[in-house]
């Protein structure tokens, strides 16, 4: 389990450096009014692709953070009782990661026109959030039971 945790930690640390961000209207590249329709379409496709990536990156972060909560759940259930509060902090931190990444997914979906992708990503992220809350609440209940609070 510790090996899995190290891998997860490193993957998220690497994900954190991929600073993908929604391309916003007026972001650097201005399209001159005389630009041909074809060029405009090309530009729209490029922005759509960039925004798709910008939504997929936090989606992956949310998935990894959910794995971290699952790891915390195992730690709380089977780990050293003297460290059970650490498992609780782990779950809370990772839950903040899931919900924070979910906010990023949603704001980045706003710039997309691909309705099917938007619907599917929104459904996925809602599922990840629900799982995160349920698992995290379970960890906190376990922590409370162990420390007798």
């Amino acid at each position: 389990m510790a090996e899995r945790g190290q891998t997860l930690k490193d993957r998220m640390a690497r994900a954190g450096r991929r600073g993908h961000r929604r391309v916003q209207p007026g972001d650097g590249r201005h399209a001159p009014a005389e630009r041909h329709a074809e060029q405009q379409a090309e530009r729209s496709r490029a922005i759509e692709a960039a925004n798709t990536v910008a939504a997929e990156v936090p989606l992956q972060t949310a998935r990894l953070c959910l794995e971290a909560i699952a790891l915390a759940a195992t730690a709380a259930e089977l780990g050293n009782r003297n460290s059970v509060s650490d498992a609780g902090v782990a779950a809370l931190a990772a839950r903040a990661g899931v919900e924070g990444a979910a906010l990023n997914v949603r704001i980045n979906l706003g710039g997309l026109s691909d309705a099917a992708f938007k619907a599917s990503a929104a459904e996925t992220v809602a599922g990840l959030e629900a799982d995160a809350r349920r698992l995290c609440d379970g960890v906190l209940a376990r922590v409370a039971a162990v420390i007798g609070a």
Partner: protein
Amino acid sequence: MGAREFLLAYNVNLNTLDRRLANEVALNIREGGRARRDANGEILRDADGTSLKVPGRLKAVRAIGWYIEQYRQAQVSINLLDYRTSPLHVVFETAARRAEKLGLLVTGSELVGLTPLAPVLEAGRHFLRKQGKSAGVPERELVEIAVRSMGLDQVAPSIRRRRSSSTTFAPAAPLMSMTAARFVDEVSTESPAPGGGSVAALMGSLGAALATMVANLTVGKKGYEGRGGNWPRWPSAARR
């Protein structure tokens, strides 16, 4: 089709000046083995005149023994053609066992040139597990334990350091190489990154690290015996 595995040039050093002893270790471990001989020491050949072989212990390993004037040591010089077939630590330990049978000691070993990180990390995990320790430690520590266990810094410490910091490690992520204080400062500035995305990833990463700490504080502790590598699978929700 299929890409050839990364070839590792790997040498195992012995406490002897005798090239023939090093070669004896090489013949024992290499896939090609040695020539089969009859009772009079004559090499046995098949109908085509090709010499018959007694295969060695390790697949995907080529090896020869020689003497290195510069180190004043005999050395088993190895080309490891596929470290997935014969892991680096297995090559090291097999050579060490054979050396011991010959009354020799392995004094260290060296990786020559570019080396992928994976076999070094796997070696680190192997030696930790062998000690009954958790192998869930940061990559840096896995490299350190591998270096110490196989004596990778015996003859060329400076080369070893350069290799492990530049070619066997992924370059440090700029955000993740900041101190905590610097990162917090950077988040507070008006530049949009690092922002919510980086902070969310960091939170998850901290959560994983803390849960890992609990696991490491559990494995091998009194009252928690048997909770080694086989903790239960992830809760089903996490497997999606």
